[in-house]
């Protein structure tokens, strides 16, 4: 009995402390206190949708579009790689994009990676080989910050998984540059920060990255695809989805085999359960 009496007293005490010292002051503040300040930038943010028609790898049956991945790689190489690394990807991984072994070697050799001079031991550079990872555009974080108005360009290997709905996020970010609605901006006293760029799909609409894909035809695609800004954005978003999760398609395909086996095994398990229990339960009705 005493344990229950004690618990009732403790329970009432906890509730009293919570209600009198936290809930009531909070409720009072909510009702009569100043409204929480909202930053003007939130008035300009728009949630970005992905490219029209979605990506080829969306959904449980999705697969890579190899031509698109190769185009996306070209955009990364010619545009993004000036500032952004993909340090978790190696040249040998390019074989997954449909390149032949010889093409992978040639592609690796077209990049310059840090090396050691075998004669003197001095640090030097050399052409990449298939075992090398993609090189870093800056020697260190301080150099990266110094060259970019104090904002370090993030590594892009995992970007498609490091944001909610990452593939669509990358696409909408690249297509979200522009100017804020002048009327609204004047009303709210909103100005894009110094050295920053307006992007309606970036969470606080002020992004340090200059529009990387500024004009149609910035890249000349080998397969003749028209390099519009949305096209380049979708291609590089697809490529970065691959860098973030090279096993994505293999994973889904494996999943179907596993599911098929399990459904079969579970049906068998259910039938044996029913057979063993037959007669143990009264018939209904």
């Amino acid at each position: 009995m005493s344990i229950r009496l004690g618990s009732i007293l403790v329970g009432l005490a906890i509730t009293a402390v919570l209600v009198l010292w936290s809930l009531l002051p909070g409720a009072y503040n909510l009702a009569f206190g100043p409204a929480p300040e909202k930053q003007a930038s939130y008035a300009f943010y728009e949630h970005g949708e992905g490219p029209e028609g979605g990506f080829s790898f969306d959904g449980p049956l999705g697969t890579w579009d190899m031509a698109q991945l190769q185009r996306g790689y070209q955009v990364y190489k010619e545009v993004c790689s000036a500032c952004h690394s993909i340090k978790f990807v190696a040249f040998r991984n390019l074989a997954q994009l449909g390149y032949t072994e010889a093409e992978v070697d040639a592609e690796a050799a077209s990049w310059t990676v840090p090396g050691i001079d075998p004669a003197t031991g001095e640090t030097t550079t050399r052409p990449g080989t298939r075992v090398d990872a993609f090189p870093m555009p800056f020697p260190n974080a301080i150099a990266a910050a110094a060259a970019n108005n104090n904002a370090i360009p993030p590594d892009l290997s995992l970007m498609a998984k490091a944001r909610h709905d990452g593939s669509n996020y990358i696409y909408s970010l690249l297509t979200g540059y522009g100017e804020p609605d002048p009327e609204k901006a004047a009303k709210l006293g909103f100005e894009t920060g110094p050295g920053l760029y307006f992007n309606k799909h970036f969470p606080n609409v002020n992004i340090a990255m200059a529009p990387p894909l500024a004009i149609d035809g910035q890249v000349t695609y080998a397969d003749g695809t028209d390099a519009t800004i949305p096209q380049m954005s979708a291609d590089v978003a697809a490529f970065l989805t691959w860098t973030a999760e090279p096993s994505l398609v293999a994973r889904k395909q494996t999943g179907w085999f596993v599911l098929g086996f399990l459904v079969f095994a579970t049906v068998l398990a259910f039938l044996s359960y029913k057979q063993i229990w037959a007669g143990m339960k009264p018939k209904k009705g």
Partner: protein
Amino acid sequence: MSFAWAKQYEPKSAFTRWIDEKLPLPRLVYNAVGAGYPVPRNLNYMWNFGVLAGFCLVLQIVTGVVLAMHYAANAEVAFGTVEHIMRNVNYGWMLRYAHANGASFFFIVIYLHIFRGLFYSSYKAPREMIWLLGVVIFLLMMATAFMGYVLPWGQMSFWGAQVITGLFEAIPLVGTAIKTWLLGGFAPDNAALNRFFSLHFLLPFVIAGVVILHIWALHIPGSSNPTGIEVKSESDTVPFHPYYTSKDGFGLGVFLILFTVMVFFLPNALGHPDNYIEANPLSTPAHIVPEWYFWPFYAILRAFTGDLTIPFTTIVLIPAKLLGVIAMFGSILLWFILPWLDKSPVRSGHYRPLFRKFFWFGFIPCMIVLFICGGAPAEEPYVILSQIATAYYFLHFLVILPIVSQIEVPKPLPFSITDAVLGKGKVASPPRAGTAGDGDGGMLPGGALQPAE
């Protein structure tokens, strides 16, 4: 084991006879999960989750041991070795996704197992020890899961470690020293990562040990059942094998199908994208949230927003942070006295009209609100909702349960499990509160204690 009519293990061959004489391990298994364990014949699907939890523990240990072969607990390279597993290790992505989602599924299964225990009052005599050991397992699981989440050394790993170890700072006088001692530094770094890895590897085996005690304690009174009345005769039970092995086999199949859907098609749905950003002590994420299975307790922690002061003065008796920490730990620790708070002689919620109302319309909505608020940013209306739900949580266990179990008039219970299954007549008079009825633990109609061994 626990009943006179339990089947006895009979070794068939010369070899099994020899084994049985030297080390009767097959006999132990036979009595624990074989034909030698009589189980009530009326268990519903809520009784599947104990076996599933055991499966999850084995799954986590097996995938975890292989992951540990490829992982390096060093703050410089930990994030990179996880990516190495994802990209270069054969089927490494499958192992890691199975381990990460396996933790979530372990908690889903455990929460359903606890829910079963709460609704059917499985914690009551004579099964208090099973419940107490279960609470110990749950606490060990929470510690293990928290430390495991730190290992990938992403942003949420780092800041989660910062917040959780920061809770110890709330302890008066020695708090900061304890936090520094726990972390091996002033902030989470290599020392913390190394010890978390060591403990994350150790604790699952400690859990396995407590699970053995949990099952041992279970086999003394035997399993509970949905009517909450004790086994009276052989017709009330069936042997665990093949009756419940077949039912658990089906349950395992359904579990694995759901698990497969998550691992292969939505592997990151239960995680946080920020954990794919390498830990950076100089950049705080916008919202630091723990894994989803901690959300209800995180909501209780954050519900205390005001210091406990002496009214009309500024003298602080207990700071808000310490109140939150006490409440969060208290919300689980109070489960240790639960068997003595609920004194209703009837176990099953089916026969307890008042208890059932508070359970479905009070406790369950309260847990859902706590869950949602714990994952939401600390702003209105979530703060006020979490405060109301936290208050109800403590009132439910500490005030409502003791009073309800005293004043409630239970519905009439069936005479036996067999009668309940076959739908025969009910007993005329309901057991009176406070007296040992058919629903009271371990008592046979004659008043004799149930034979234990």
